[in-house]
């Protein structure tokens, strides 16, 4: 409960800081919306020439992509930890974090939030509506709730992979180069996994479960019953991986060496 209160305090402060730089904010929102629009058009262009891949139609692939954008945007808003090593370990900011009575990872989430990233949710939804209307999908009354659950699961999957990589910083000095690579691998989750060979499919499902951010949960809304098991596993995988990453983080904190003064 206390953490929720704190979250809103920080979010309010974040908005306030943003509002003090008024022109910056307007320009930023403008450019965010613009880049989301460009993104949207780009997706339509790229997929414009494909018709079917491994049994998936063009509109289905666009729908998967649209779904992927939603958890990815939420992840981007709150788990901005790609520069954790430089910012917190090398510069020693972790010292300050550890002298405050809140879980260290939660503090970093609060400090590094970037709410503009949430605009991606709008783009993602727009893409899904576009593709969905062309596919004549039918929705039940409970589907919005399933949507929320699956989006949260996907977000947790993304977050836990990046928290795990950030935790490596507690042991080793050089995980910075893994981060961009992970962003690339993350992109594979946007496409139907049965287009890849079995090894890649296995990795994307069980080792770096990026498939649970895109194709698996989206398959539920596309009515692809052969994938339903995976779709419903999404929140479970998300939770299990997230708990594991928190555990590794907590172990990492005890190995923290501090920055030399």
């Amino acid at each position, binding site marked *: 409960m206390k953490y929720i209160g*704190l979250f809103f*305090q920080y979010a309010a402060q974040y908005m*306030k800081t943003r509002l003090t730089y008024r022109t910056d904010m307007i320009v930023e929102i403008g450019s965010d919306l613009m880049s989301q629009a460009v993104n949207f058009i780009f997706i339509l262009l790229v997929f414009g020439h494909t018709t079917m891949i491994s049994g998936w139609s063009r509109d289905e692939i666009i729908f998967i992509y649209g779904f992927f954008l939603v958890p990815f945007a939420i992840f981007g808003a709150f788990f901005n930890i790609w520069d954790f090593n430089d910012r917190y370990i090398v510069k020693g900011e*972790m010292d300050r974090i*550890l002298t405050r*009575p809140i879980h260290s990872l939660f503090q970093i989430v609060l400090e590094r939030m970037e709410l503009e990233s949430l605009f991606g949710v709008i783009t993602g939804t727009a893409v899904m509506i576009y593709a969905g209307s062309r596919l004549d999908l039918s929705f039940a009354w409970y589907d919005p709730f399933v949507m929320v659950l699956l989006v949260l699961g996907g977000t947790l999957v993304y977050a836990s992979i990046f928290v795990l990589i950030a935790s490596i910083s507690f042991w080793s000095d050089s995980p910075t180069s893994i981060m961009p690579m992970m962003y690339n691998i993350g992109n594979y989750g946007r496409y139907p996994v049965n287009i890849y060979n079995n090894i890649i499919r296995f990795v994307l499902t069980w080792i770096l479960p990026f498939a649970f951010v895109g194709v698996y949960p989206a398959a539920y809304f596309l009515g692809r019953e052969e994938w339903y098991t995976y779709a419903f596993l999404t929140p479970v995988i998300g939770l299990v991986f997230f708990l594991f990453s928190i555990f590794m983080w907590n172990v990492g904190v005890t*190995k923290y060496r501090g920055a030399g003064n």
Partner: protein
Amino acid sequence: MENMIEVKDLRKEFKSHSSRSGLKGAFRDLFTRQYKVVPAVNDISFTVKRGEMVGYIGENGAGKSTSIKMLTGILTPTSGIVRVNGMDPHKEREQFVRSIGVVFGQRSQLWWDIAVQESFRLLKKVYNVPDDVYKKHMGHVIESLDIGPLLDKPVRKLSLGQRMRCELAAALLHNPPLLFLDEPTIGLDVLVKLKIREFLKEMNATYNTTVLLTTHDLSDIEALCERVVMLDEGKIIYDGQLESLRSNWGEGKQIEFQFANAGVTKEELQPLLAELDGAWTPGDRQNVWIANVLNEEHVISEVIGRVAAAHKITDLKVHEISIEDIIRNIYEEGVTNG
């Protein structure tokens, strides 16, 4: 009185990877790494009582920061026992840090872009301080540190002295019974230093706040602490009253003479100290010589009398040996004559 800090055989080792030389060595490093285990803090033990103000001193790399970080729960000890305020700092970190305040001189606790009072407001939420307690306590702190006019300015627009006073206020926001200060007066001018010292004394008197202070500025320690703990190479080399440090190692007086005639030599001066157990050392300017003698009335007046009778002098100063000199001597010679 109860103990606020109890440290027993505390040890922190850092593993550092030592690389072999040359390309061949680099290849071998890939497969078998050689690690050197360096103890940054080497089995230290001490206790601090509630309400004490203790100076924690040592040269760079003596293990001060590392031990402070173990006391504040930032680092996990390799071995040994730490109890601070009845808790294990690392194991019960989130509970424990509620009972301490920390100021790291080189690192800001405040948010850079937002006004000081907004930072305070966030910290108030973080520490869950009730409104009435906050108003009463912080009103007092803000007044004594004289930071009222700074509250609506963003931290990045403050001068170092102003920022430091705000940092101190932020560290005391939850009125902790124990305060760690790491170089709190680094780079500050004399007036701000005096204000901060005054304030710390007042906090100690009103709330019986325990203070552990590390600083390079020994005048801070002289002004605030009765007791010092001195570290060297990860070990405690002195733990005791500041005063006894002076009386054990600094019992002498230095009498500085400036002579009118050029070319006074040590040989000429030496007989003047006969039977008085002293020694001459050259001063920092020409024609200046310093007599190091015992701190006894008759010795001092005897020396001055003899020298003044034998040579013409233009200036005369009597110094007590400063704490800084004493500490430098201890580091150079070790604690042998204690």
